[in-house]
């Protein structure tokens, strides 16, 4: 899966905007987009919010978790614990990148937020690598990881699956199937 595909899936999350135009309720296949009145906040998907923002038709309200103090708390909690902490939003990385790229004027202390989110990301990815390593070293059969986001899983997916395949190949050396031992297929 590309990171671009994960970002596409992340754009389905809703975010609050304050439009400066008015429009009646729009009925789309995916759901209804409530009536737009200038100055009144309304919940829309991120893809629409970014589009409106680029056309200068709205102002984006940062989500509740995108606040310096809250993110600092989350970062410290993440560093203290060994397990994965509940995540501010299932697509926090993508939302941070999108909102801070397109709407940084609506978000106070954008640079600090970017740094904090990057810290949280680095901590979580380090924990993920640690648990992947212990999974392979102890040759476990199952692992359960809570609170992982799709983006984190995506970065490690291809490497991890390939190495598990290699381990399977090496392991199957030790249990040869009964009829293949000593017989070689003629092609």
């Amino acid at each position: 899966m590309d990171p671009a595909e994960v970002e596409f899936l992340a754009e389905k999350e809703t975010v609050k905007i304050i439009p400066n135009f008015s429009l009646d309720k729009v009925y789309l296949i995916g759901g209804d987009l409530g009536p737009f009145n200038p100055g009144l906040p309304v919940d829309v998907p991120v893809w629409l919010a970014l589009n409106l923002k680029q056309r200068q038709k709205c102002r984006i309200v940062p989500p509740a978790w995108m606040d310096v103090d809250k993110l600092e708390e989350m970062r410290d909690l993440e560093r203290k614990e060994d397990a994965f902490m509940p995540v501010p939003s299932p697509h926090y990385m993508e939302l941070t990148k999108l909102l801070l790229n397109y709407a940084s004027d609506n978000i106070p202390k954008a640079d600090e937020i970017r740094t904090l989110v990057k810290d949280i990301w680095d901590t979580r990815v380090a924990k993920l690598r640690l648990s992947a390593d212990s999974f392979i070293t102890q040759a476990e059969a199952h692992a359960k990881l809570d609170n992982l986001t799709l983006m984190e899983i995506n970065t490690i997916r291809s490497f991890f699956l390939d190495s598990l395949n290699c381990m399977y190949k090496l392991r199957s050396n030790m249990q040869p199937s009964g009829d293949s031992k000593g017989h070689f297929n003629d092609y």
Partner: protein
Amino acid sequence: MDTQSYLPVQPGVGMEENFLSLDDILLSQERLPARTECAFPRLGFLEKSTDNPDIVEGTKMELPLWLSKGLYDRKRRVLSVELPKVYREGWRTVFNADPNVVDLHKMGPYYYGLGSQMLHFDCPENTEIGQTLLQTFIGRFRRNMDSSQNAYNEDTSALVERLDTLEKALFRSGQSGLNSFQSWEKGQASQITASALVLNYRKRKITDMQQ
């Protein structure tokens, strides 16, 4: 992220080889020390060290894997294969002590593959060889993962030169995951660039057409 227009055939699983896999074909070129159990008349030209027109019984020769596998028989009338140095007791203790130190590329670039194939020739040490292969892989996994996931935009030749072919493929997939994430984060994922296929075809570049 670039997707290839074809997917190469993967090497085979465990003791089997994939007929069409290039990695397996190259692997089967590795030479093994072997001892003939019966005479091969009129094949003396294969054994360069003597001028004998036949190969007598008991000659020690180096045969490639594909030939050894084909001639090997359970009743062992034809050939008996010895383990290469790398899979013997001495080296196995080195691998068990610290797998990270060893230069697997020098030990034959197909350490894991050849080791899996050696299990076809019934040696008394087969189970230990299988276990050593697995433990070496597990021991080196941590370092491979860290180096492939953290080396962004650097010259990786120093990291890669000590890896076996299998580990090199893993390294590449780790690097591609890292590169695609970093390029997404920089915003290059949404930039439109000419496809590699089109550039190679060299008919569509507007600069060429204007000249």
